[in-house]
């Protein structure tokens, strides 16, 4: 592509990495992290369990039990690393793919399925979990997140906000405007971009000529690229950025460099537009295998531990499936609930009409 020539004029992108794909621990001058063996085992467990939740959801969709599902496969480390960096009072604004972050926010996984099974609009209370509903209109949530950050900036200095979005979303006006606002108001926010290289069928080249993290400098705040398949690095980088936000140093853009291993959603067929070799190359950078290798090599976990996590995952999957199938259909007249804070004549009239219409079937 012609863009290669213009890119060549710039320094190559830097990538924060603390754990190599082979499971070797590496040091970084700016981002170190102290993790106990217990912490690492816990991260490993998170990674395995969210992959299992995701696999179960894909299977449920394939069997016709969900309408659609957006898989997080390959992005577990980016989501668990950043999600575990959050404190209870921090607020997260997700896209539709943040099942791993939802896990970190203690959202019951079955609640993620309601929307995709077609029984509700997303069954969790965003306030209870400090985790907003999934946003599917690309980019909108970044603006909500900035506003939220500006709100808490006024009354609670100990909290920060994180906005999740994809590489494709960076082409939206919303996202660019949210960068400007965050910068000008010095809002306590972290922009967490999972660059999974694809926006449905469009490769990153369709969205940007420069590495995404470098966009931040034009808006006046730091940008950093992290190995999105390295859970240690994602945790360290996000923690530091959240801390900066909390202590009045304003926003940071984190570009988690990762890969969407699956289809965009279950309705998409990526073989139409991308080559298999790309997938093969990324398989070698698997976010879970490297943690496992590290734990093994450093004798911080034994086979019994890995077996136990696998057993827990299998049980979680089975339980999720059972509870998914048991989700009830809503009551028909629920369509009129919560449209407005209080009823009004048109609403009352239509509710009565529908009640009468439904009554007709009972006869």
């Amino acid at each position, binding site marked *: 592509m012609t863009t290669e020539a213009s890119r060549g004029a710039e320094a190559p992108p830097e990538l924060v990495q603390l754990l190599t794909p082979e499971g070797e621990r590496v040091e970084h001058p700016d981002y170190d992290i102290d993790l106990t063996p217990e912490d690492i085992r816990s991260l490993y467990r998170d990674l395995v369990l969210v992959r299992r939740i995701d696999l179960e959801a894909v299977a449920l969709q394939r069997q016709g039990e969900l309408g659609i599902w957006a898989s997080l496969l390959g992005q577990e480390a980016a989501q668990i690393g950043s999600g575990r960096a959050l404190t209870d009072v921090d607020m997260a604004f997700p896209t539709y793919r943040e099942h791993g972050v939802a896990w970190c926010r203690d959202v019951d996984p079955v609640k993620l399925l309601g929307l995709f099974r*077609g029984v509700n*609009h997303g069954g969790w209370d965003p306030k209870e979990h400090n985790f907003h509903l999934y946003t599917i209109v690309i980019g909108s949530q970044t603006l909500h997140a900035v506003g939220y950050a500006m709100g808490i900036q006024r009354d609670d200095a100990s909290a920060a906000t994180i906005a999740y979005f994809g590489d*494709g979303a960076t*082409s*939206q006006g919303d996202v660019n405007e949210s960068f400007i606002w965050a910068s000008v108001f010095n809002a306590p926010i972290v922009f967490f971009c999972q660059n999974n290289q694809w926006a449905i069928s*469009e490769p990153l080249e*369709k969205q940007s000529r420069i590495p995404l993290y470098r966009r931040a400098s034009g808006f006046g705040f730091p940008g950093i690229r992290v190995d999105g398949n390295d859970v240690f690095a994602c945790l360290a980088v996000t923690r530091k950025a959240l801390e900066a936000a909390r202590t009045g140093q304003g926003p940071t853009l984190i570009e988690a460099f990762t890969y969407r291993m699956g289809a965009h959603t279950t309705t998409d067929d990526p073989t139409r537009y991308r080559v298999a070799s790309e997938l093969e190359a990324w398989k070698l950078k698997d976010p879970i295998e490297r943690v496992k290798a590290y734990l093994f090599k450093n004798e911080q976990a034994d086979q019994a531990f890995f077996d136990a996590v696998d057993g827990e995952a299998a049980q979680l999957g089975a339980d999720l499936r059972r509870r998914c199938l048991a989700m009830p*259909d809503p009551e028909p007249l629920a*369509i009129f609930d919560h449209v407005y804070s209080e009823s009004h004549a048109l609403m009352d009239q239509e509710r009565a009409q529908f009640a009468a*219409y439904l009554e007709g079937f009972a006869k």
Partner: protein
Amino acid sequence: MAQLTYREAVARGIAQEMNRDERVVLIGEDIAGAGGVFKTTVGLLEQFGPRRVLDTPISEQAILGAAMGAAMTGLRPIAEIMFSDFFAVCWDIVVNQMAKTRYMTNGQVSIPLVVKSGNGGGLRFGAQHSQSIENWAMAVPGLKVVTPSCPEDVVGLMAAAVRSDDPVLFFEHKGLYASRGEVPDGPIEDVLGKAKIRRSGEHATIAALGMMVPRAVEAAERLAAQGISCEVIDVRSLIPLDAQTILDSVGRTGRLFTVEENPRALGWGAEIASIVGDEGFWDLDGPIVRITTPHVPLPSADSLEDLVIPSVDRIVAEVEKAMQA
């Protein structure tokens, strides 16, 4: 004659116009290599190449803003907004820019632009990916608004839209993409602003749009078995609006029903009811009945989505009730 799906007809219509006029270009998200997320543009990249079929960044404002600018250079762009709900992301360009440019330049600058979009519900896409927004568009002077209900009309109305010197919002119904119909071979031309009678009848007129058309036809078949003979009119184009075909029909039947997928308040049927109340009042033998989605956001729950969008059952029930009253 070929049997085409509605989605294949979209590609056929675009190809017909791209072959006819090299100024026609197609831009949007995932429309090139992927052939569109609804597979309405399959094969166009292969046929016309990347200079005329362009994947863009995910920036709806820029897609329409740039399409508008390109139209000023003499190109005749077809731009895709993937889900019509996303018109809300770029509504400034639609309402304040493309709709008003001819007017504000005293007719010096025309914007020959088609914006095609997947519209409507019934596919379990939830409140923000299922709306029927043709009535938003109908409220904006300067725009033309069409919604084909069958493959042949898709091709013909696409051709008419591309040839129009005004911006046209071309609403494809997502729920119809898989439906099939006969499409004559060779180039097809149609006109904007002409309704079509899909089924003749004597006792009542049912005006419907998009996916409501096949439902109204099916309801009419069932009502016929009960001795209620309905004429079904496919409105096809909201601006320009062919009120005359509806008025003539009401003149014969004396009753009018509208079947609208949009939420009730200010749906296009309200405009038609007003026109018929005004110009066809003395032909009416009873109140005009609007069958619509209630004034609620579209539910995500499958069962509730099916309940709110007018179904064949509900059309039959409403017409029966009104005709017996």
